[in-house]
């Protein structure tokens, strides 16, 4: 719960968090090292100075760090884990679903665990989706279309194999498809930021919600156009939001575009923890005003009401979270870290 300086309680759903192990012990090869180094560069490049972590903590943080940063020091009420396995780079996976599920089990109601799959695995991908549903009862998945797999150097959401997987997701009630469209690793030679496949998939699967992480930056214009046409396309703010600190005016331009094109109901907060911690992001977002000239240009405002939607109400709708019930529940049993 985030208590505003005016004393209002805001329910926060953090739409994008990780519990990773990028430590040297878990790295399989040089790619594993370079991957966590790249994340660390994001962390150091865009965080306020007083929020910087030591490299070793960033590589592998404890469950206690996680809970503290999100729920105790941090304002989150519910956090969504996005699974990023990267099994070619890490021995036990970078962020594996087994590890996140164990944490989630310890703190009922606090975490939502999303799975992931690679449609290029064909039948195996379908089996794996069944497995994740039965074992972890997942409500969503994280898709990474720029990932390599054998000879393939990426895939598209509207590939036939992907459609088979989404048909199955639709059938099993895995409704929230988070798609990584933003800074990519290994975009070899394609325009790996291209977002047009979202358009096709969102049209063909109306029953699924398509949450485009990093709001399609750096293809914000294409993304906005698509999200305007498709009622089931949403923007995840992870990576865009930290600019609120380093380049506040620029953040104003981004959020003004999003509000103008896709509106306040379809923007979701996400910290991308542990790249950034949610507390400073939420505090800065709450205090933020779009610079006047930018707001006037687009005729939009980032009001408190809109901020509340972005911080929790919108994600609650996608994940069937009963906010009143959860508020009461959390008030009765405040978060405390379980003994190891």
């Amino acid at each position: 719960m985030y208590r505003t300086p005016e004393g209002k309680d805001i329910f926060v759903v953090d739409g994008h968090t990780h519990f990773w192990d990028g430590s040297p012990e878990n790295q399989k090869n040089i790619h594993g090292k370079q991957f966590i180094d790249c994340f660390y560069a994001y962390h150091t490049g865009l965080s306020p100075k007083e929020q910087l972590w030591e490299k070793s903590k960033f590589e592998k943080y404890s469950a206690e760090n996680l809970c503290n940063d999100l729920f105790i020091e941090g304002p989150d009420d519910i956090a969504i884990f996005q699974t990023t396995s990267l099994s070619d780079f890490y021995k036990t996976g970078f962020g594996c679903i087994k590890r996140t599920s164990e944490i989630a089990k310890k703190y009922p109601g606090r975490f939502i665990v999303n799975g992931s799959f690679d449609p290029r695995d064909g039948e195996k991908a379908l089996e794996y989706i069944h497995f994740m549903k039965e074992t972890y009862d997942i409500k969503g998945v994280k898709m990474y279309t720029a990932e390599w797999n054998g000879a393939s150097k990426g895939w598209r959401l509207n590939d036939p194999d992907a459609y088979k997987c989404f048909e199955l997701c639709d059938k099993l009630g895995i409704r929230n498809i988070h798609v990584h469209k933003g800074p990519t690793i290994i975009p070899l030679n394609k325009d790996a930021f291209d977002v047009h496949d979202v358009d096709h998939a969102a049209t063909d699967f109306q029953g699924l919600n398509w949450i485009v992480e990093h709001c399609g930056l750096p293809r914000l214009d294409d993304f906005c156009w698509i999200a305007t046409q498709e009622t089931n396309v949403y923007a995840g703010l992870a990576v865009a939001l930290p600019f609120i600190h380093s380049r506040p005016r620029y953040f104003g331009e981004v959020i003004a575009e999003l509000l103008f094109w896709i509106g306040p109901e379809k923007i979701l907060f996400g910290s991308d923890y542990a790249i950034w911690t949610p507390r400073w992001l939420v505090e800065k977002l709450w205090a933020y005003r779009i610079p006047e000239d930018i707001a006037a240009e687009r005729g939009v405002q980032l009001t408190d009401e809109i901020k509340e939607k972005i911080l929790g109400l919108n994600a609650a709708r996608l994940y069937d979270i009963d906010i009143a019930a959860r508020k009461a529940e959390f008030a009765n049993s405040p978060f405390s870290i379980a003994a190891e």
Partner: protein
Amino acid sequence: MQPASAFTSRVIELWRRLGEVNDPELDEPITEMGFVERAEVVGDGSVEVDFRLPTYWCSPNFAFLMLDGVRKALDQLSWSPAYRVKLHDHMFAEEVNRGIAAGKAFGEIFGELAEDLDLETLRETFGVKAFKRRQEAVLVGLRQHGLTDREILGMDLTALDAARFEPGEAAKQKPRYRAAYVERFPGRRQVDPVFLTCEGAPIPTLTLGAYLADLRAVRINMEFNGALCRGLKHTRYKELGVVDGEPTLVDFIMDRVPVPAATRI
């Protein structure tokens, strides 16, 4: 600074040439982005350039385009030196270095990995984006100056050359827009309107606002990459051009004293 010796003037020429190479995706000089980590004229006059991108994962096609640009820039040096260009800490560093040294094309270096990529198409795509971004900065600058949309769209090359801006984005982008305009539309006369779409169509006065909104979206995208790359580059490796915030010889050569905030972060 001391009067320029032959050596110093070569160093200055080297950095000036390198400063003409842009990151295709960001439309920023590679020298300003800090990608040129070292560029030296050694004893026998030959040149060594060390190149490092913000991440190990940076797109190899962009890496190639930039190094190809470096190669062309070095070919234009007045003393025609032998040179060595090296890309560091990139997942395809070996392939790219070998290929660049042998004067190979991108497709030859990456073989089947390159698939059907046509680098010229990519160059054009980013050429269009650069044109738009530069044009937006100038148009916005002119509006801020108090010119009406009609006056702005009536400007020809002479009027553009006469326009003066306070230091800032418009001042920086004016000569760059001019260069992109002349390159894209070589047949235009001095008296033709200097602002037109990248396809060569006139911009109606009434729609300038909407047109600018489109251009703004292009800039927002490019700035995102630029800001991210700067942040990543800075934190991945210590910024070599600046020691303890004090300008170095390179800063004087690059005419960036005082050191811009972006390279200090």
